[in-house]
């Protein structure tokens, strides 16, 4: 009775060994359902597109890349379990994820302890990559974006600025902090600070008190879901000053909900789908073809870039062995990504230009690129 068991065991081992040889497994944890599903879905779509593209072109090192995606349901507590599964059970060589910094912060220590490189597409909180030398990101960090917009406000001559922060989002708080510091340094003043929570729909109370403070511009470092409503309600309340924001503004429904109420506003982001460069247009075209004519947003572009940087590093290292792979990722220089030319600095953060877009005429217009 024992022999068949051993035999079949050996067979499965053999089979898995054979399978393992022609594919490289890469894990991804993303919030495909739950509160922040919209961001997780976008970044996952960009990630998946990159995998398809690489595999269609023959893979890396002669092997196909296999993406193993797990949904963390936007729930704290899940990322740790998932990353343990990806590393221990699926034997992935690298981990991609997440958009939300709080969930990246939960997964990062485990990747660091297991010496598996982790690349976060869009966690902008500084602490994420401070966890250790196996943790990377392909987006810029909060302080950079905040100061970019502060300098932009300064260049436009807006000195009295009100700040409306999303207190439930660390991203928003980080951006607001950096913006305020840079603004004060440049001689501006914050005339009113107010806040709201993710998921709020009525902002008239906050806007009423902001209006009373008579600002020349309002800094609004939130996500598009709330920003679109804030824009609409601000105009209804008779607030006519420009609104300023960050990459959280980019989303499919921003202008659909806001209509023309955000005209004359500006925000910083990672890339512009209207960018005429060949790389961006090619990406937009492929993305639309695969996903039902949806326009890719920042999260999708960052998800895509995170895969491409990883694939390039695997190619360069010539192996998936963890230490060499880590060194190869860390050495990423001037990678031509969809979100600009990406160089990873010694703190494993991406240094790359930000794009400032203006809103008007029912679309986004490229205003300027700000180098780091």
């Amino acid at each position, binding site marked *: 009775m024992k022999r068949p068991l051993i035999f079949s065991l050996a067979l499965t081992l053999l089979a898995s060994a054979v399978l393992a040889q022609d594919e490289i497994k890469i894990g991804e944890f993303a919030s495909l*359902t739950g509160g922040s599903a919209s961001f997780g879905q976008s970044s996952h779509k960009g990630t998946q597109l990159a995998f398809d593209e690489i595999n269609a072109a023959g893979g890396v090192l002669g092997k196909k890349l296999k993406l193993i995606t797990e*949904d963390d349901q936007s729930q704290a*507590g899940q990322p740790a379990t998932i990353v*343990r*599964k990806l590393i*221990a059970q699926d034997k992935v060589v690298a981990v991609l994820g997440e958009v939300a910094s709080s969930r990246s*912060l*939960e997964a990062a220590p485990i990747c660091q302890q297991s010496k598996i490189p982790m690349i976060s597409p869009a966690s902008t909180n500084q602490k994420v990559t401070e966890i250790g030398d196996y943790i990377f990101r392909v987006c810029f960090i909060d302080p950079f974006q905040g100061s970019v917009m502060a300098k932009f406000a300064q260049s436009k001559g807006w000195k009295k600025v009100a700040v409306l922060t999303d207190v439930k989002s660390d991203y928003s708080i980080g951006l607001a902090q950096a913006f305020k510091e840079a603004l004060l340094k440049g001689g501006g003043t914050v005339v009113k600070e107010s806040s709201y929570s993710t998921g709020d729909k009525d902002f008239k109370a906050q806007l009423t008190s902001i209006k009373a403070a008579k600002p020349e511009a309002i800094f609004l470092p939130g996500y598009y879901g709330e920003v679109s409503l804030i824009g609409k309600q601000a105009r209804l309340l008779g607030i006519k000053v420009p609104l300023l924001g960050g990459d959280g503004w980019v989303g499919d429904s921003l202008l659909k909900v806001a209509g023309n109420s955000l005209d004359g506003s500006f925000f910083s982001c990672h890339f512009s789908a209207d960018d005429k460069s060949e790389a961006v247009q090619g990406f937009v075209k492929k993305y639309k073809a695969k996903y039902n004519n949806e326009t890719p947003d920042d999260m999708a572009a960052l998800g895509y870039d995170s895969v491409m940087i990883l694939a390039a590093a695997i190619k360069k290292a010539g192996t998936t062995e963890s230490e060499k792979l880590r060194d190869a990722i860390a050495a990423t220089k001037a990678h031509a990504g969809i979100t600009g030319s990406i160089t990873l600095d010694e703190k494993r953060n991406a240094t790359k230009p930000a794009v400032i877009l203006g809103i008007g005429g029912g679309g986004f217009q490229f205003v300027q690129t700000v180098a780091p």
Partner: protein
Amino acid sequence: MIERSKILLLSALLVCAGLSHVAGGISPYYFDILIGIGINIILAVSLNLVNGYTGQFSLGHAGFMAVGAYASSWLTLKYGSSIGSGTLSTTTVFVLALLGGGLGAALSGLLVGVPSLRLKGDYLAIVTLGFNEIIKGVIQNAEPLGAQRGLGGMELHTNFFWTFAFAAITIYVVLNLVGSTYGRGFLAVRDDEIAAEAMGINTTKYKVLAFVLAAFFAGIAGGLYAHFKQFIHPEGFNFLRSVDIVVMVILGGMGNTAGVVVAATLLTILPELLRKVAHYEWLPDWLQQVAENRMILYSLLLIILMLTRPQGLFGNFTGKRNQRLQ
């Protein structure tokens, strides 16, 4: 009777200590699930004291868990490094921090227990839910606790032994309490509060005691969780986490500790199995998505259980008796 249960507890602790050596060797993923089972057993068995044995309805157990998690993390972060570097002292600090977290949670349980004196059923459910939100809100605004960023940097202290030792202690305390003459009061409050009061039972005292004890153990579970995941975030202790625990109690059978232990184990493993199912590519898309979204299944489970088997999967003696009486 009591002697025998003490011997059982002692042997359970010994088994934990023994298994603890073996458990270190298994895959980190299975170990993660194993610790999850232990923590969920503590949570579900303690909640069962309120929702099952005392017949109240709390929807805020994750709130107490949060208090324990944050209080114990704060303690180990503050005092963990200042006291010696020997293994014994760090372990002592950890266990003391766990107990501190438990006491903090018990204190907040007292706060919830007091308004609960006048409320029942639906109202109590909403008030406990409200408390859960308030606790979350306080943490989200508390800078020293990491506010919205979450709190990290705790060392890994939680191991197999401490998790299952506390699970065994929770089970022991709840079973003994309910089995004692004193604890009959809980059941009396559940079965007929007015009659119990008429018989001279201080129903208020029992209700508050149930809340405080349940909160204490939830706090311990929170501490274990925090020192296992090493990163905690207010959103990890939201309404949905509370619902998770409630589902375990209901599936196991309210007032049936053994059933609840089995249910807590099953419901910790189930989502991980479903993760596998979600990857079967021959399944239609929507089925894969359903498998991935455990809350759809949990909610259907709740509805179907209530319609067909309100006493839970494993039944419950007193429940059956009540039904027969009706």
